[in-house]
């Protein structure tokens, strides 16, 4: 892997913008490697969805692409969001396939032919959105760099150095300053597994307790109201769908 990385350095691409496959101490950075594998899989299968004309194959490619996107989140340490991606988007695509395609299909192996005009329109809209996304992604200067892991290691080194000084000053382990120890604990946790404590924060925020803000103004604190509105909305949609399905069946009864 080191050879691959050094080969990339010599090419026109700057290795820093590609993300560092090899960490500074020469170790293979598995997270980065798998991040790129998942990201490339997601992009490749998303393209396959575009060029394929077979609806069920498209659904399969879409599922691979979305699963790879959840893999990207897992390698980034966002386990909760990655699992949500699996549950909602991948599971949702399965249900979409079942009810959208298989139940309404008039013949086996339906295909979709995209007209030239649709291609132009699609490329126009999709390209605009892509340009917007790229613009937004590079708006934040802290997102330019790929040295997240180096920065984390440097912070860890700084905190360790602080503790070393305290220990050198003759302090016992129990006398170390709690703030520095807390900082060290947070950094160790971030290095090892990202931010696992965020799951609890998300759950609390959904029922109205925001752990990340002290803003106590009424209605702004949590996400309980939006959550409830979305839930009620979904129930209404479900009842409506059930009603439509029933109405159709009743009409066929009348004809008979």
């Amino acid at each position, binding site marked *: 892997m080191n050879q691959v990385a050094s080969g990339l350095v010599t090419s026109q691409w700057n290795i820093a913008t590609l993300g560092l496959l090899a960490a500074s101490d020469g170790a293979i950075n598995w997270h980065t490697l798998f991040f790129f594998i998942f990201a490339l899989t997601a992009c490749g299968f998303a393209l396959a969805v575009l060029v394929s004309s077979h609806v069920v194959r498209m659904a399969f490619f879409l599922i691979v692409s979305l699963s790879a996107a959840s893999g990207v989140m897992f390698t980034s340490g966002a386990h909760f969001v990655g699992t949500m991606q*699996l549950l909602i988007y991948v599971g949702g695509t399965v249900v979409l396939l079942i009810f959208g395609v298989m139940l309404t299909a008039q013949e086996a192996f339906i295909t979709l032919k995209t007209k030239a005009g649709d291609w132009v329109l699609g490329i126009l809209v999709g390209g605009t959105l892509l340009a917007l996304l790229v613009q937004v992604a590079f708006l934040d200067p802290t997102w330019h760099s790929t040295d997240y892991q180096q920065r984390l290691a440097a912070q860890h080194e700084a905190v360790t150095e602080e503790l070393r000084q305290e220990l050198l000053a003759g302090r016992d382990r129990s006398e170390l300053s709690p703030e520095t*120890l807390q900082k060290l604990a947070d950094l160790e946790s971030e290095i090892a597994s990202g931010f696992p404590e965020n*799951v609890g924060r998300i759950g609390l925020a959904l029922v109205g307790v925001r752990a990340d803000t002290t803003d106590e103004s009424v209605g702004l604190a949590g996400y309980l109201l939006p959550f409830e509105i979305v839930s009620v909305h979904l129930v209404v949609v479900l009842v409506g769908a059930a009603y439509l399905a029933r109405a159709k069946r009743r009409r066929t009864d009348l004809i008979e």
Partner: protein
Amino acid sequence: MAENISTWLPPGWEPLAYLVAAVLQAILIIHIFALGAVVFIWAERKVSGRIQDRLGPTRTGGAFGWLQSLADGVKLLSKEDLMPKDADPLLFRIAPYLAFAASFAAFLVLPFSNGWVALHLNVAIFFLVAVLGLEVFGVILAGYSSGSKWSLFGAMRQAAQVVSYEVPLGICIVIPVIIAGSMDMVTIGNQQRGLFTNWLVFHDPFTMMVFWVYATCAVASVNRAPFDLAEAESELVAGFLTEYSGIRWSLFFMAEYGSMFLVSAVGSVLFLGGWNGPIPIFSLLIDNVPWLADSWMFVWLANFFGLLNVLLKASLGVIAMMWVRWTFPRMRVDQVITTCLKYCVPLAAFCFLGVVFWVSTGLPFLNDLAPAAPRSTVREGWMVEREERVERTLSRLEAEIAAAETQPATVDDEPAAAEEANEAEPVEPTDETVKAGMDDADRAAAVASLAGGEQ
């Protein structure tokens, strides 16, 4: 695991430790499928035989027909790989792997003993539910792509079944999460430490009820009779499996038996104590004999017996599913949907409310007969790992300082001095104010409960 392996590898090869660990874990999990299928298919033949007043296989490999599954496996491998003319080649080929991969992925987060888990996720049970729902995609793709009406019927029945059992199954799984206050399966298992009265199934009357709802939905989720509508060999030839043969067919079967084992193991961790045996021999020893708790070999032994506990409980669950399969007749599609949506959902929702009532009022039940450590003192995996890493960093710092003080001049002796300092280091984990709100007794109980499994 990767950290341990990296110490054994020759210098310069340490980065490969993660790869070695990943490959080892993958091989171990694949063996659950391969060996599990061999054993359980033989057990299925024997159980069905006995239930129908037959003997089952008796000749292959001795008196009990031990080698029957192996003979079947050889036969399957040597079969011709057929594909119907009308099938969609890509989807037909990929479907078995999809079903297998989904079942395999669910095993990644399943703890086999205290901390013996391939991927220690903070959201393990949530991940498991998400991945379990994907296994049906392989079945539906297989049915759709086969180009056969029997297969398509099987796939459509499977679709109807999925949307009906997933709802109550989700509610059932949420209930232990509510009681435990964590989605970390290792934490949920560790909270049931001690005598068998600490198992979550004995938490209150509602969990006792919801366990049976879970069992029903679990049988439905692995497509076993009386819910095997997708296969239904007496109605649909073999349903979605009609056009499959040889190794692809056996992949579907391995996925099915793997999922049976998985849902049983999940049920055992969520409701039946997981790696904690009915009588807590190992946890009592670890709690009361300090030198045993310090020896890593004893903790490993305790974990090994915990593993046997999980395997035993899961296997009993699989045998119970076989018993159910050969006892009950198959249900019609509408009966399956009625069972899941009309009976299981209200029952699970009622139990959900009951458990919330019980937890919020703190009423006593069997759990309070011989309580182990309070639930809130069992910390989640990431907190334990964080504390261990802080401990390691502080020990390293102190060792370096001690080494610099004892041998300031000679550089050569420094590693030896560091080792001495490491040994002189007190082993007991000191409270570093990371968990400021916890008093010493609670903390000791928590450390002990996380240190080992039990029988």
